[in-house]
């Protein structure tokens, strides 16, 4: 190193470091491609392999160096983004900081990339093994990863996802403002007709922002309403949102509500969150001595079109693993023994939970099918839980009853299915497919199931 540099601070040129690392990766790639073949030949011809062995060792060390340098680069990039967010960035890509960006807890970030795809139990074991500093670091630097990992405690996921949602809100708002200030050709110069692309992107941004608005409003702590937790969030595609009212890790009763056709990250989520709140209110009213948490789970791509997509089980099947994984995670991270867990699905959401239960352990005590078009099995005994804990309802005037059984299977309110029926009539005799949460009777029965007063269900 050249002398004369000040030791009181360090700096990284993010762009420059990226170039250096990419060059080193090229060297490592060349070694990876060449050394095994040379070793075979050296051994065949009886050439001394001592230097080849040194090169192989050097290759391994070089890959570690590359990994560590990427780690520094990534952290410097986060710092640069922070500079930019606060208007502190200059024209260059240089960040300055005291000491070393990898002080202490750098191994956390290496491990965090290995958690995806692991069981909630394994993820939880990893998380529990971290120090408080390491956890804080992971949440600060990798909020989207921590926020989406089943097995990380809900409070930590909430902390991470609150960062994610604000970052996404800022990013999408800025992009929308850019779009609105320009012309279609500015953003899609290679398209012969840029207008549809421009309009689609604007529509997508407005719709997702509408959904983020709803969630941000509910996350705001206000006197008189239970605290909300953001368990998952994504604006990709149709979006993903999992919001709990109350902390399921600490609750005696935990219920997960899965909405159906037409659900996506938009202002329409306000209805699903309101339903979640209303179910919790009812449960708390009947069982004030116990704690209950209600979760709105939009962790799947719901069908958007009743006629084109909803008649197919494929989207439900794609959601199956996510549903089971999430329910397993609720069991894993729960703090006070075993909670009483319920999974409720409305409309296509009931198809999702039925098919998920059919394929593997669903990790809940109760299944509730509300206005179901069919759940992929013909009898409660195929759902893998106590048949007495499978409940179904359908309002008299709900047109879902017209769904033929050969589309998504027999409806669970049918006589031969074996589910316990409960009433959900509404004071409005013409109430239809989306009015169940307006029915006091339905809310009361749902609350009974959620708090475990099964004998009261009628």
């Amino acid at each position, binding site marked *: 190193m050249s002398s004369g540099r000040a*030791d009181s601070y360090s700096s990284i040129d993010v762009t420059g470091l990226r170039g*250096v690392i990419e060059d080193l990766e090229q060297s490592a790639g*060349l070694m990876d491609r060449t050394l095994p073949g*040379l070793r075979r030949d050296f051994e065949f011809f009886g*050439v001394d392999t*001592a*230097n080849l062995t040194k090169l192989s060792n050097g290759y391994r060390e070089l890959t570690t160096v590359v990994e560590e340098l990427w780690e520094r680069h990534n952290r410097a990039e986060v710092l640069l983004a922070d500079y930019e967010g606060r208007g502190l960035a200059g024209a260059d890509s240089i960040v300055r900081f005291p000491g*070393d960006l990898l002080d202490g807890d750098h191994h956390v970030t290496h491990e965090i990339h290995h958690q995806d795809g692991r069981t909630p139990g394994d993820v939880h074991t990893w998380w529990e093994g971290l120090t408080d500093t390491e956890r804080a670091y992971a949440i600060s630097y990798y909020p989207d990863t921590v926020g989406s990992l089943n097995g990380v405690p809900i409070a930590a996921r909430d902390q991470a996802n609150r960062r994610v949602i604000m970052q996404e809100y800022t990013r999408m708002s800025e992009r929308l403002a850019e779009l609105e200030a320009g012309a279609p050709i500015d953003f899609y110069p290679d398209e012969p007709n840029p207008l549809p692309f421009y309009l689609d992107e604007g529509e997508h941004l407005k719709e997702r922002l509408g959904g983020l608005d709803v969630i941000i409003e509910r996350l705001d702590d206000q006197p008189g309403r239970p605290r909300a937790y953001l368990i998952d969030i994504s604006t990709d595609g149709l979006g993903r949102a999992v919001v709990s009212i109350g902390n399921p890790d600490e609750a005696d009763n935990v219920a997960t509500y899965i909405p159906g056709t037409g659900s996506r990250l938009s202002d329409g989520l306000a209805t699903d969150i309101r339903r979640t709140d209303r179910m919790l209110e009812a449960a708390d009213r009947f069982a004030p001595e116990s704690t209950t948490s209600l979760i709105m789970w939009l962790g799947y791509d719901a069908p958007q079109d009743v006629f084109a997509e909803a008649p197919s089980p494929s989207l439900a099947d794609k959601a199956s693993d996510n549903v089971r994984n999430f329910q397993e995670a609720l069991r894993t991270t729960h703090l006070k023994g075993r909670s009483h867990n319920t999974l409720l699905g409305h409309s296509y959401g009931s198809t999702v939970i039925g098919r998920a239960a059919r394929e593997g352990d669903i990790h809940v005590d109760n299944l509730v099918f509300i206005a179901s078009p069919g759940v992929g099995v013909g009898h409660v005994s195929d759902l893998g839980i106590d048949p007495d804990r499978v409940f179904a309802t359908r309002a008299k005037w709900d047109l879902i009853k017209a769904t033929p059984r050969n589309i998504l299977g027999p409806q669970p309110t049918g006589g031969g299915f074996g589910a316990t029926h409960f009433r959900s009539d509404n004071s409005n005799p013409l109430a239809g497919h989306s009015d169940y949460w307006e029915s006091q009777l339905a809310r009361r029965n749902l609350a009974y199931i959620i708090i475990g007063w099964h004998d009261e269900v009628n």
Partner: protein
Amino acid sequence: MGTSETEASIMVPNPLKTALERVLTRASTFNDELGDVESPITELDTGATWTGSAARRYHDDVLKPLADDIRTAAESLAADVEHRLRELDDLVPEHVAIALQVELSIR
């Protein structure tokens, strides 16, 4: 008998040597292509890409020794092959050459 001994002793170029010369070419090409391994490390040493005491320590304790080891070992590969080449006979009996060709073709 004497005729067959004469026939058996016809000497031809050693196919092992020819094949090993190709390995020498590959080892030399590898060394040439790897020549750039030191450039990025030098950039970290003298440039503004990463500055400070941690950068200095990392360069002196990790990067520089690593680059030196890789460079020295890569440059020695050709010498290792050349050393072995010198040990091999330039010529071998024809029947030996045929056997070696078979061995080379099936390895």
